[in-house]
């Protein structure tokens, strides 16, 4: 009978990483049957959202929460997102050094121990001087339009659903692919982990797999003139009374931050805006701003708070 004291942290970690031997695996499972502490350790280990990048608490995922923290890759060795970006550089005949790009992604923390979070997709391309836009809730028409403009498109998908493989219990975005073509019911993708790398996927499989990322796509523009802002739709997010107070505080602070930066650049108050003299009519305290100007800051604050909630965070007031 396995003794719980024999199960070292090293062995537990090796087991969780799938590196334990047959005997060790059986030893762990045997101990798990009777060792309450071990059961709790595993329970916590499985539930711990490793990236949990939840410096604030993350709500449980629901349909209305964007999976920005999910990875377009699951393990430390899975670098599909980086390989997709390299593929785009290659396609555009731009010089690149694969090792350097990988190291850059790791150094800048875009490639995390558990993979590349969706919000970091495309960072290497942007770092290489390309214009990258990111968008949730995209449509097939968005992809088609991008391809027509000869832009490159990367999407976050659930790999198992993409290839109609048995679906595991974890429904999440765990892979990135480049879309190269869409034709009627067929979506052609570049998948760095699926030889021969270019595959034709049935549209319904693609849509099922793509849905897991809330239809997240990044688009690499050919020119900055094509840039069209697409703020995340936060209309469905309610704000309770406390957060409305927070909205006013954020709005006022945003104005102060703006004014402080302008003062450092030499701007002063002027009845009318004069860029040459560095004068601006809003260089006054927030409380003195006309309502029309306050409204601008309030809308920004309002949308920021809603966005925080939409991205799966809760805002909790300390007592």
């Amino acid at each position, binding site marked *: 009978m396995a003794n719980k004291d024999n199960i070292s942290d090293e062995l537990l970690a090796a087991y969780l990483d799938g590196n334990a031997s047959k005997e060790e695996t059986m030893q762990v499972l045997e101990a798990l049957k009777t060792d309450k502490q071990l059961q709790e350790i595993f329970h916590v280990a499985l539930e711990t959202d490793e990236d949990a990048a939840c410096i604030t*608490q993350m709500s449980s995922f629901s349909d209305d929460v964007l999976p920005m923290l999910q990875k377009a890759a699951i393990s430390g060795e899975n670098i599909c997102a980086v390989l997709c970006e390299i593929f785009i550089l290659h396609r555009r005949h731009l010089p690149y050094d694969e090792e350097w790009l990988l190291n850059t992604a790791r150094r800048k923390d875009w490639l995390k121990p558990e993979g590349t979070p969706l919000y970091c997709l495309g960072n290497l391309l942007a770092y290489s001087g390309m214009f990258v836009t990111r968008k949730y809730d995209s449509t097939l028409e968005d992809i088609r339009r991008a391809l027509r403009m000869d832009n490159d498109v990367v999407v976050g998908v659930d790999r198992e659903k993409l290839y109609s493989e048995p679906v595991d219990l974890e429904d999440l975005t765990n892979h990135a692919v480049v879309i190269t073509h869409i034709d009627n019911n067929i979506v052609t993708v570049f998948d760095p982990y699926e030889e021969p790398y270019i595959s034709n996927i049935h549209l319904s499989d693609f849509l099922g797999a793509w849905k897991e990322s809330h239809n997240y796509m990044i688009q690499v523009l050919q020119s900055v003139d094509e840039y069209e802002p697409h703020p995340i739709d936060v209309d469905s997010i309610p704000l309770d009374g406390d957060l409305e107070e927070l909205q006013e505080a954020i709005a006022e602070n945003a104005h102060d931050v703006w004014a402080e930066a302008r003062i450092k650049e030499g701007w002063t108050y002027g009845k009318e805006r004069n860029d040459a003299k560095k004068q601006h009519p809003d260089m006054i305290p927030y409380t003195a701003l006309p309502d029309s100007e306050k409204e601008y800051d309030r809308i920004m604050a309002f949308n920021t708070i809603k966005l925080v909630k939409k991205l799966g965070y809760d805002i909790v007031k300390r007592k």
Partner: protein
Amino acid sequence: MNDQEIIKGLIARDSYVTQNFFFVKCRPLFYSVMKQVFDYEVEYDEMVNELYIYLMEDDAFKLRNFQYRSSVYQWLKVLAIRFFIKKRHRMIDDNSNETPYGEQDKSADDESRKDAQYDMERLFEAMPTKRYVEVIRRLVLEDCEPEVLAQEMNITTANLYNIKRRSIAQLTRIALNDIKAYGK
């Protein structure tokens, strides 16, 4: 930074590695673990400082004995979970001499071996993703080389590594559910 560099830096008390890896990069991990272990509010910084002291005690004995059988991150996760659970029970074992695996008593009688094998087959039966069962069977039970299996499955080794971890997670979930269902 790779795992070797992280371990080396932590042992050497390199301020860059300690600050950036342990106190910054691992912050979300520790936060998430604490949230699950404690059902009451705890002082994050105080707890993490204690964890750091625990990790570094006896001239960083634990770090010096790390055998790289998993990623550093996975190991730290397990270490942190165990530490916080013990902390919660106010029974932290001051003896940091975690028995190195190689010195453990590996003996188990034949009967329990058979039981364990039987249990494992039962868990496999209950696993919904048969592909995962196959991965565990080949990699863990048959000790197949990952490169060979990856080739058989027509996937890359890196992707197999990914699938392997998910397979183990599913197996463990099933084992935990099994215990719950049978009240073991």
